[in-house]
């Protein structure tokens, strides 16, 4: 209805959000993937006191990708160094370890670590794992030396089997994606929603509009329709950018596959159409209460967070789709879009419920919006 009006603000909304988003997303995902791949190859820097007492243990560490750093400190100084964060961990090997090994006794070694230092944890657990492995190797040798079958001391043999499909694993990364899609959808219409409510008031162009031979209901519906249209345009831009961007992501490095095809993108867009109507009506209603552009920006910025709350809840609680959850706008779109990306089958009932519930909620908001515009306080 009054679409091409505020061209500059709209260009910034369109270019920045949908296009910058996927670029940022691609860069971040690439970094995460590189880090995950890099960690496995990274050498473990292991400061050791008394390395000379256990040459075999040191060789075992070196063979398994650790770098032994000999340090000359007493135990208290080493504790302080770990406490201050100068070192992530320090291994203390006592002088009598050689004698303990020879006598077949249990040799005490100290692994000094700080459990409040979260970034050191992965080094500590790797060092701990290596120590355990070495200890296991020794115990097997000792049992064999005494003529006992080593399997006797391993009554349970745990094998972890990861059954996640490659695209299922990719989903952990793509989980933020559906959130982002919803966000870009809402943001795409935010400027128009602000402009057609608070902007129209602040500019003083509202009274002139009300003097035109159109009913206020028509006026409100036209404004909301324009907002919803812009939301869908922003969404299509974002989806297009993602379909193209996903091809360049190094997901296969992690053994993941992304099935973000143009067809999936179209299905997601279709699922989001009721959400655009709901979102446009929601932003419009909130915008109608505000008096100035600035006020509207503050409020609508906060409102943008509301549809993302159920998604946050869902990702924490790790919920699966149920018909009941399909009645929640934004959450149902998130779940369906996630399933589409996962490549899972989706129940038609879920889709129908999602569309119906979101449209009903949107309809209620539309009704509220038209009621708001019948008020005389509108002109302030």
């Amino acid at each position, binding site marked *: 209805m*009054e679409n091409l*009006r*505020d*061209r*500059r603000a709209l260009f910034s909304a369109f270019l920045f959000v949908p296009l910058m988003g996927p670029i940022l997303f691609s860069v971040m995902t690439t970094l995460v993937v590189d880090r995950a791949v890099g960690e496995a190859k990274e050498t473990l820097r292991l400061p050791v006191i008394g390395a000379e007492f256990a040459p075999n243990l040191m060789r075992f560490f070196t063979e398994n990708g650790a770098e032994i750093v000999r340090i000359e400190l007493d135990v208290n100084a080493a504790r302080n160094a770990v406490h201050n964060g100068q070192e992530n961990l320090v291994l203390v090997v006592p002088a009598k370890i050689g004698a303990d090994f020879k006598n077949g006794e249990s040799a005490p070694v100290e692994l000094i670590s700080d459990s409040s230092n979260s970034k050191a944890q992965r080094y500590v657990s790797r060092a701990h794992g290596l120590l355990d492995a070495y200890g296991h190797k020794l115990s097997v040798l000792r049992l064999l030396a005494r003529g006992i079958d080593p399997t006797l001391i391993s009554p349970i043999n745990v094998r972890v089997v990861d059954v996640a499909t490659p695209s299922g694993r990719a989903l952990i990364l793509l989980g933020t994606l559906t959130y982002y899609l919803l966000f870009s959808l809402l943001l795409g219409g935010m400027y128009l929603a602000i402009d057609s409510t608070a902007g129209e008031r602040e*500019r*003083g*162009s*509202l*009274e*002139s*509009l*009300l*003097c*035109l*031979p*159109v*009913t206020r209901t028509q006026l409100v519906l036209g404004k909301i329709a324009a907002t919803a249209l812009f939301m869908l345009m922003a969404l299509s831009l974002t989806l297009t950018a993602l379909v193209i961007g996903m091809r360049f992501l190094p997901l296969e490095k992690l053994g993941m596959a992304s099935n973000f095809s143009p067809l999936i993108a179209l299905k997601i867009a279709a699922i989001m159409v009721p959400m655009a109507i709901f979102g446009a009506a929601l932003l419009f209603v909130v915008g109608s209460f505000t008096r100035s552009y600035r006020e509207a920006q503050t409020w609508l910025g906060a409102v943008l967070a509301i549809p993302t709350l159920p998604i946050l809840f869902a990702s924490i609680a790790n919920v699966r789709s149920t018909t009941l959850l399909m009645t929640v706008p934004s959450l149902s779109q998130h779940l369906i879009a996630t399933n589409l990306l996962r490549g899972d089958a989706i129940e038609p009932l879920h889709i129908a419920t999602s569309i119906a519930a979101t449209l009903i909620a949107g309809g209620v908001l539309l009704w509220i919006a038209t009621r708001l515009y019948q008020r*005389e306080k509108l*002109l302030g």
Partner: protein
Amino acid sequence: MIVVEQLAKDFGAVRALHDVSFAARDGRITGLLGSNGAGKSTTLRIVSTVLRAQNGRAVVDGHDCALEPLTVRRVLGVLPHASGLYPHLTARENIRYYGQLHGFDRDTIEHRIDEWSARLDMNEIMQRRTQGFSHGQKLKVSLARALIHAPRNIILDEPTSGLDVAATRALRDVIRGLKEDGCCVLFSSHIMQEVSALCDDIVIIAHGRVVTSGSPDEILASTGASNLEDAFMRAQANYLGSAVTS
């Protein structure tokens, strides 16, 4: 023809209009005169169907403003006090947009825009974005926008406030032109010279009531004043005096 009968209007606890009645006839310029807060804008807003009266009624060309608002809006051109333009659209686009909302076809709209552009002498600004327009330029665009549907009845709420001399003069010529076309022009002002220079009929409002009305000569005669400014002050004082004694 605009007829207003016994309008009353409350805003919360404040009674903005008590009893306002007058008629603005075709082919005449009627001035609504009153100090700030007297109820001029409220009266005009009720006639332009933006507000509803608690009591009484406003009728434009025989159509009740409360019952047939859409019909009234088609025969009425309104230039509200706050009449903002869309800053990112050109002058022509601003006017065209309103023409489209009125439902006219493209040729009619473009033809009328050209007519108004010539009449208001604003050909050179038509293709520019209205951002940064002077007050006078903005007013010309708003006026053309308000009159794009060639209404027979025209309401102007304080059109000359903040205008320079040349622009005020140009606006007066336009208003007189509308009168010669046989339109009914109702405009409000708190500036005496303006009203006396333009109006065929004057309605003086104070505290939500019509204090006196008639042609300038009639008002001078009824108040016994030698000029309109005195008449205005006397009418107001008389009314206040009678309100106090009663």
